[in-house]
Structure formats: C-alpha cells, structure tokens
C-alpha cells in the first residue's frame, strides 16, 4: 500500500475511483436523453462522412488536372466545354476584394468598441448600435444583401464600379460590386473574432503599457494588435470560407458569364469592373439545376470547392490550437493569471 508511515501521511494520493456512477442508477428519461445525444452526434458524423466520401468518389471520377488549367468554352456537349480556370480565378478575386474591404472595417470597429466604446453614456449607446448592426448584417440572408447591392450599384453615380450597358443603364454587376457585398458576409465573423480576442487581453496588459507612458494608440499598435494576431487570422479564415461558399451574391452581382469579361481599356481595372463567375456559380450553372450543360464538370468543381472549405476549416483549427499551445500567447497568460 504505502512505502513509509511518514510519506503516507504527508502526501497521501487519493485513491483512484470508478469513472462515474453506473447507468443503472439513472432515471429512464435521463437515459433516453443520453441515447438521443449519442444518436445525434453519431449521425452528424455519418452525414459528414457520407458527403465527403461521395464527393471524393465523384472527384476521383471526374476531376482532371486539365480542368483546373483550362478556360470554360461555350459548347453544346460536355466534352467541348472546357475547364473552370476562370471560376477559380473569380473565387480568388472575390475573396481578395471581400477581405480587403472587410478586414480593416472589422478590425477597426472591434478596436473602437473594446478600447474606446465604454466611456460615457453616448459611447455605450454607439457601441450597442454598432454591435447590433453587425448582428443584423450577419443575420440578413445573402440574397437580400445581393439585391440591396444591385439596387445600389445600378445608381448612375456608381457607374464606375461596373459599366454602362447598351441601353444606357448602369449594369450594376461586376467583381467590385460583388466583392463589396461579399465583404458584408465576411465582416461579422472577423469582427467577432477580433473583438473576443481583444476582450480576452487582460486589463493589466493595457495598464502595463499605460504605466510605461504609452499612448492608447501605441498600446494598440505594439501590444494589443500583436496579441490578437491569431484571432484576426481565425476571423479572416472564417470570412474567406464564407465568401467562397456564397452563391446568391455571385449569381445576382457577378453577371453570370462563365468567363471573366473585362470592361474598358485599363487591363487590371477592366477585370474588376467586368463580370465573371466563381466555383459556386459554375457548379450551379452546369448542374441540372441551372443550364445543366456539364454535370460532370459541376461535380469536379464542387469537389475543388469542398476541398477549399475543408482546408480552411482545418486552418482555423490549426491556428486556434497553435495559439493555445504557444506560450507567447495571450490566451495562456490570461489563463494563468
């Protein structure tokens, strides 16, 4: 049992006990709930596995490297319809535009809310307004956001975002227009991730910087922002995965041309003002739900899209874990203190 009398009385380790009470002592209703929890959890796993396996199978069946590197062609039969290089580029471009607009907005508003938003009644009121606006944006269906975007970008004053059609009306559909609305989709998760990260920075960290005679701005730039880098990265990844998965905004605001169609003479700007497609709209157009011209290619593109989303999810997981693991992180410091 024990080595010596002394060590036993000084540091008795409590004996290992059974894992938990036996299920037999549970009430019937509790057992049912436990069963339901198990069934729900396992069936979710099964559904995910089924989707991934099915898409993987389709991918092996239809996905060819050539598809990724060739542009879509207009054709009656599937063999001549080309690949989905343009939709891939379109997805990347929309993601870039969306994040480029959403990231500064989300980070700045999170900074304002956490660092400046609670002095006095007016500021608290403003904070509440900002937070609920972002919640409302997050809860708005993307098709509604898309229609709103169309209404805005068809205004004459915003003709530079897209281009003027033959009848003299502003077309209102372009990469810029879609990207601007995409930023609204990406903004809420980015905002929440940054805000939660900033709120998790312990107050004594700020005080330490103030006590060194640093201004609030210097504290934000040199202490707070570096501390929430991982949170921002997580937020950006979440935003990206929402942008690349979105269909409604693309269908309404990107003009449904499978190939990117630049408008105007300036090379770079022309693409941004022109129409195009993304992987989601490509899948939709080519599936039996849309034109139905190339269902096999729709599957191939869907596999690529799903791989992207999976990789992004893994990236979020990885960033979160790396943050928790690295001893240089705020989360750890806050946990100990």
């Amino acid at each position, binding site marked *: 049992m024990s080595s010596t009398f002394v060590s*036993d009385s000084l540091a008795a380790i409590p004996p290992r006990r059974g894992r938990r009470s036996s299920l037999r002592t549970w009430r019937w209703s509790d057992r049912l709930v436990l069963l339901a929890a198990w069934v729900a959890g396992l069936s979710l796993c099964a559904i995910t596995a089924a989707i991934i396996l099915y898409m993987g199978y389709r991918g092996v069946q239809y996905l060819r490297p050539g598809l990724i590197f060739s542009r879509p062609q207009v054709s009656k039969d599937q063999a001549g319809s080309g690949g989905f290089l343009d939709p891939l580029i379109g997805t990347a471009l929309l993601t870039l535009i969306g994040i480029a607009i959403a990231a500064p907005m989300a980070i700045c508003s999170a900074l304002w809310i956490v660092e400046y938003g609670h002095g006095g009644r007016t500021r608290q009121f403003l904070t509440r307004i900002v937070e609920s606006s972002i919640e409302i944006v997050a809860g708005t269906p993307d098709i509604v956001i898309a229609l709103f975007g169309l209404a805005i970008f068809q205004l004459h004053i915003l003709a530079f975002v897209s281009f003027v059609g033959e009848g003299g009306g502003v077309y209102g559909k372009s990469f810029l227009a879609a990207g601007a609305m995409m930023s609204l989709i990406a903004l809420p998760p980015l905002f929440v991730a940054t805000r939660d990260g900033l709120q998790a920075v312990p107050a004594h960290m700020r*005080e330490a910087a103030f006590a*060194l005679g640093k201004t609030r701005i210097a504290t934000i730039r040199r202490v707070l922002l570096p501390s929430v880098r991982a949170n921002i990265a997580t937020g950006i990844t979440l935003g990206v995965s929402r942008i690349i998965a979105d269909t409604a905004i693309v269908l309404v605001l990107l003009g449904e041309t499978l190939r990117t169609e630049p408008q105007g003479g300036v090379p770079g700007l022309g693409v941004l003002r022109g129409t195009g497609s993304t992987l989601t709209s490509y899948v939709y157009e080519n599936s039996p739900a849309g034109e139905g011209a190339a269902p096999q290619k729709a599957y191939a593109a869907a596999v690529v899209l799903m791989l992207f989303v999976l990789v992004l999810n893994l990236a979020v997981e990885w960033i979160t874990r790396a943050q928790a693991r690295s001893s240089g992180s705020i989360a750890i410091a806050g946990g100990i203190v």
Partner: protein
Amino acid sequence: MSAHRASLYSEESMKVLSRETPPELESVPPTQPIPPVRTIVLDRAPEPVRPPEQREAVRRALDADGPERLRLEDVSVAYSQKVAVRSVSLSIHQGEVLALIGPSGCGKTTLLRTLNRLTELTPSAARGGRIVLDGQDIHDLEDTALRARVAMVFQQPNPFPMSIFDNVAFALREQSRRRPRRPELEPLVVDALRRAGLYEEVKDDLHRPALRLSGGQQQRLCIARAIAPRPEVLLMDEPCSALDPISTGVIEELIHELRRDLAVVIVTHNLAQAQRVADKVAFMYLGDLVEYGPARQVFEQPRAPRTRDYVRGAFG
C-alpha cells in the same frame, strides 16, 4: 490510504505516534527510499536580504533625507461619491523606500496609482490637492511624460507577449515608432536588465519570449522595463505578493540597490516585508493617513493607537 489518513488524529493513532517507532516503519526495510515526487527540496535556504548592520551603514551613507522628489499636498481621491483617499500630505525623497501599509481597502493602492495619474483611466475617479514632482505640478505634465518619470511595477508580473529584449525596448521607444533601432537600444536594454539583476540569467538569449520566464524573473523584467527610461520615482504595488520566498528575497535586495538612484514607493500587505525594505513607513486606514515616519519608529514606537494595533496584528 485515505482511511489510514483519517485515523491519523484518532486516539489510537496518537498512541502510535507517541511510540518510538511506528509499526509500519518496522515492517518496511529501511533502505527503501521515499519516492522523489513526494519530497520537497529547498535547494538553498532563504537568505536574509542583507545583514542589518550593513543596511544601517547604507542608510547613514545615503543621508536620512535625500533631495525631495515627490510632494503630496492634501491629496484626496474619490470614486464617484466614495472617498478612497482623504487629504494625504507626504514627502518622498530620493534614496529612500517609502512603504505604504494598511489593511485592504484603505486606499494605499489608489494613492499609489494617483502618483502617476493611472487613476485617470477609471472614469469615475476624481482627484483633489496637489502632487508636485521636482517642483512641477503633475497635473501640468503630459500624462505619458509623467509616467516615464514615475514608473510603476504591478502586483502580477505583466510582461508583454514579446521577447525579453522587446519588452524593455518598448519602454524606451518613442510611442509606437520602431526607431531608434536595435543596435542603438542594445546598451540601454542591457543596462536596465543588469540593474534589475536579470541580465546574467537571460544574456544567452535576449530574444526568447518573456512569458517563458519564471514568475520571479518576469517580475524583475517588469522592473527592468520600468527603470529603463531612468525614472525619478518607482512605484511598486505589492510587487512580491505573487512570488515565492526566494524570488521575493531577490526583489527585496533589488529594491535596496535601486533606491540609490530613485525614490521607491512600495505598497505592501506584508508587514514583515515593510520592516525589511522600508526606510519610511506610512500607515493608512480607511482613506486616512494615520501615521508617517521612519520605519523603526512606526514599528517600534507607533504614536497612534490604530498604528500600534495594526503593527501588532490586532486587526487587518
């Protein structure tokens, strides 16, 4: 095991204890070692901060009253309606350690945070009276400039999540600018680390994350960070209450070294610590400054009855 432990204080086991050898020990061969996990080893005995006679010599050499650094005239602080500090007047001199003692909630931390205007971060706090730093009212100074001259060390070690070097360099840099660059800062950083007694332990790798250091090292890093811009006054808010006795000893020794160059104001709950490090002691009670005087006088011949009771441990 636990049953045995429970019976330790029963009559029977007391009898067992009173016997010369407990029966369990007889049954165990004496060569069997106690598992190392269960033994507590002190690698070195806690040393006294400094022999008392040597401390007295230093104290005399430094002259009882160095040049005055901070003067508090009728300072009061209130949080909305609640008065936390009530018209305190004090004088803080270079070369001395002033300990603010008193029970929890007596306003000593508030008073300390008023000295570098950190209370202004609390929107409801209001201050009355005058605080003069080297002849200048601190209210007329830019708060960032003031805080570089009146530095502060907190209860919890709070290094920034950066490297050791950057933690100290951050204090030296002009606001958020990166300039001056690393090579120009290096000697200043090394000097600050050396004065904080940390350099020898970290010199191999100044660029490792500060949060990997032990608690005591982190606190000394915070001290290095605070004294790097050569402040005139160093405020310490219970700097050792989160540390082990050995780290506490190191930091108390450090406080002794530091007061040559600056005035130290330390808030402490620990009367023994105040006795070890302080030259002057101010006893506060419920926002009032009850007694202020040389450490020996306050501890040995307190004038106010409340001080006497507190120092003797009658309350607090």
